[in-house]
């Protein structure tokens, strides 16, 4: 007798808190001749799924926590030209809708950068829960999306001699989250 596994659409219930030591939130943007990357750490994130499937996914990081390879560049990113960390100290994400299809997820939520909130759709993957070496239940959640940074007021650019802008507007955002179930 053959069995056909049902497509999983339910999220694992419970409150799942981020393991900040192993999770990562990063950005990647085309700059002149390559891809420039940076990250934010530490990050906060939480997924709550109630028995009736009500879902909440939230995450945030301090703008000051942006990590790049150079201190001068990092300080420039915090300035009013970029994140304006003085006036908009936190970068935040919130969603109340997470659709699952097997191990693929689609998340519709709102992203706030530089005090400006915009709707975003993220796609990614989710694992089934496993028990880690310490007896905790864990899931892995990866998400990514592309946003136009100018929608959030990050408008800096400089023209190259060929007339093209040095920095692209589209920025790829990625989150690789280890989530641990609250006891």
């Amino acid at each position, binding site marked *: 007798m053959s069995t056909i596994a049902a497509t999983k659409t339910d999220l694992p219930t419970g409150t799942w808190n981020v393991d900040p030591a192993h999770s990562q939130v990063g950005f990647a943007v085309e700059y002149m001749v390559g891809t420039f990357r940076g990250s934010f750490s530490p990050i906060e994130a939480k997924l709550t799924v109630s028995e009736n499937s009500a879902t909440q996914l939230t995450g945030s990081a301090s703008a000051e926590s942006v990590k790049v390879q150079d*201190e001068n560049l990092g*300080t420039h990113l915090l*300035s*009013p*030209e970029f994140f304006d960390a*003085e006036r908009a100290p936190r970068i935040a994400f919130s969603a109340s809708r997470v659709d699952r299809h097997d191990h693929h997820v689609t998340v519709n939520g709102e992203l706030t950068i530089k005090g400006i909130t915009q709707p975003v759709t993220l796609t990614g993957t989710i694992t089934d829960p496993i028990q880690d070496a310490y007896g905790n239940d864990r899931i892995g959640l990866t998400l990514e999306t592309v946003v136009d940074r100018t929608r959030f007021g990050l408008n800096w650019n400089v023209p190259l001699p060929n007339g093209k802008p040095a920095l692209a507007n589209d920025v790829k955002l990625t989150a690789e989250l280890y989530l641990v179930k609250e006891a």
Partner: protein
Amino acid sequence: MTILGISGSLRQDSYNTLLLRNVPLELELWDGLKEIPPYDEDDDVEPAPPAVARIRAAVAGADALLFATPEYNGSVPGQLKNAIDWLSRPRQSAALRNKPVAVIGASTGAFGAVWAQAELRKVLATAGARVVDAEVAVGHAKERFDADGRLQDENLRGQLDEVVEALVAEVPSVVPVAA
């Protein structure tokens, strides 16, 4: 509230200094620009050269800055740019960091130092300042002031009002911080 006015012209009878005197607000006018030594990272140590320490303290203590710049060869006068270089270091505790600033300018030519103003805004933003998006370009400066140094053009006086209003609106005690 302390608004520091910095003229990019060192000349005694500078039109840009005169322009700052026409601003409808009590400014503290900076007169120590000429004493600032050329930026040299070897000299950028504690204690800073006295003229540098003075302007850094004045800028750090001001709520906002208003620059008036002439245009030399299509750009910002060297001594003004040099002062900004000092004020932009060290990066993380720089006096200019997050400081609300606005730029106005006067020139004896037709265009009122618009290129220098644009470049000065770029330099200030790169230095980490909070640059107000406003401009006052006083062209033909020789003919714009009366014998008492009063700016004669009502339209330009209105623009000065708007720049000052926009600058004051950026002072931290006025602006609520986002959650």
